[in-house]
Structure formats: C-alpha cells, structure tokens
C-alpha cells in the first residue's frame, strides 16, 4: 500500500509540468478512479483545505491524501513521491545551467522566455478573479496588494498578517452584533 502510493505520487511528480494546477487532474484520476483511496467528495474537501493552507498546493494535497490513506507514514511517503522528481531533475538542470547561463544563445532564448513567463503569471490573475469571487466590494484588495508589493516592494508577509488580523476582528464584531440582537 505505502509503496504503491509512493509510486503514484512519484509518477505524478515526474510527469506533470506547470505546477499544482497541472497536477490536480492527474492526482484526482489516480486517487479516485484508479486506486479508489478517496471518494470524490473527500477529494474536493482535501483540495479546498490544500488551497487554504500555506505552502505549495501540490505538497498540501499530497499530505492530505497520504494522511487519509496511511496516517503519518502515508504523509512521509506521499510528500517524498511528489518532491523527489523535482529534486533530481532540478539538481541536474541547475548544475548544467551554471555553465551555460552566460552563452549568447542562452541569453537569446531567455530574452523570449521571460516575457512568456510574465504572460503565464499574468493570465491566472484574470482567471482566478473570475472564479475567486472578486467583486466591486473587495476588488481593492488585489489592486492594493499588487501596487504595494509589485511597485513599492512592501513585504507580502505584512499584508498577510494585517489581512488575517482584520478578518478575525471583523468576524468578532459580527459575532458580537449577532449575540446582541439575540
């Protein structure tokens, strides 16, 4: 069981390019259809939790599935499976890249790769704004964050801490109002 899970996550980690959103459909297929470790509903709960938790989403969902299948040992196995392919491939690429980074041809390739990467980062902003519930009431949050962090180089950690504190205070105030009405 543990070894089979390790191979599943190793396979997913090794063959998906483009991060968590490329990995999720494969993880879903493997975990629900092939191995039947979780039901559809359990998987979706896990996905929501993985997106709420800090850290890489692919790692978070691996932890959830690993824990549900085989507790702590399952977590260790699933996380190793997800991260080992990255470790090996990147170590090889990084050791080669140091030698070729300053070649003229490599500079030319990156001259085109960089605007392409910028586009790939920008597009999810629009897609997520649609699915992530952005409205005229909260659109100031992403715009403000983009200006503060992107232009004025404010540390994102401060924005996150302020946001969490503000949300907790707001929910407390709402709770007090509700209890007064009762």
């Amino acid at each position, binding site marked *: 069981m543990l070894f089979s899970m390790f191979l599943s996550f190793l396979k997913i980690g090794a063959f998906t390019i483009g991060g968590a959103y490329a990995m999720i459909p494969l993880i879903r297929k493997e975990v629900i259809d092939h191995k039947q470790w979780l039901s559809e509903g359990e998987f979706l709960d896990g996905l929501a939790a993985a997106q709420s938790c800090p850290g*890489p989403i692919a790692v978070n969902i691996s932890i959830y599935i690993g824990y549900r299948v085989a507790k702590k040992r399952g977590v260790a196995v699933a996380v190793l499976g997800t991260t080992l392919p990255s470790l090996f491939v990147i170590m090889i690429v990084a050791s080669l890249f140091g030698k070729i980074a300053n070649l003229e041809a490599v500079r030319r390739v990156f001259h085109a790769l960089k605007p392409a990467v910028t586009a*790939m980062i920008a597009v999810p902003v629009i897609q997520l704004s649609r699915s*992530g519930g952005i409205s005229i009431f909260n659109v100031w949050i992403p715009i403000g964050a983009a200006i503060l962090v992107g232009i004025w180089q404010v540390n994102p950690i401060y924005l996150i801490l302020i946001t969490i504190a503000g949300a907790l205070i707001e929910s407390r105030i709402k709770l007090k109002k509700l209890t007064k009405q009762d």
Partner: protein
Amino acid sequence: MTYLWMMLTFAKIGLFSFGGGYAILAMIQHEVVINNQWLTSSEFFDVVAISQMTPGPIAINAATFIGYQKGGILGSLVCTLGVILPSLLIMTMITISYLKLRHKPWFQSVFYYLRPLSIGLIAAAAIIAGRDAIVDWFSIIVFAVCFALAWRFRLNPFLMLLVAGVIGFIWG
C-alpha cells in the same frame, strides 16, 4: 550564509504563501532578491522560467534551484525541506481538523479576505517579472502573443515556453 539561514528563509516563504505556486513566487522574489540579495531580479526569473519547464510543483523547483545555486546539493535539500516544512505541520493539523474548522465564521472570514489578497500577490509577481522581462519591441510582442494564447486557448505552458525559447533562439 549558513544552511540553517537558507532553510529558515524558505520555511518563512512556505509559511506565508497562500494560493500556490504563483503566489509563492512573489514571496520568494521578496526574500531572495530584495531581503537576502542571493539573486538579481534577472537571475530570479531565469529560475522561474526553468521551474515552469521542468516537472513538479513550481515552488519546489524554484527552492531546489536557488538552493543549488547558493549551496550545492546540500543547499537544494535544505531549501526544499524548508519550503515544505510549514505544510507538513499545518496541513497535517488541518487534515485532522478541517471538517470541523471550515464551518467556523472566523475561518471563513479569514479566507474571504486572503483569497483576493493571493490574487493581488500573483499580479505583483507579474508586475515584477514584467519590469525585468518587457524591455523592447521583441519582448512586448512575445508577451502579448503568449498572453493571448494562454488566456484564450489555454495553451499548455510547457509547449508555449518551448516555442518561445525557439523563437528567442532564432530572433531574440
């Protein structure tokens, strides 16, 4: 620079990144380029491009790559361990208690505000990437074409970067 400091820096990145790979980039950029000055902005986006073209989670790839550049194989290991350490602690706790937590008003309230913030942080990463990447007519055209392809046709990222790389090799 000690390995411990590298691990702690990446643990901080993991702890404060909500919303996955692209939101993490804003955090890595701030720590690695501005706070610690391990890489220049240009070197950082070399790493981002490679992280997107190689298999696995982007944040793990970037952590491994930066770790390798700054401290070889051991550097890779400590940075990768650092970035997943908060996940290991927090996600395990959430897995055990999420079904209870998700109906709590304070929990819902926090994520009602954190989600739009994550989107803003991704936009910030795009702005920072753009300042380094979009420097002449060639790069403006590449950006516009890739943006349209990724948005309208959801072109596979690997394929898109491969084609962009070939075009850069020929005309860049």
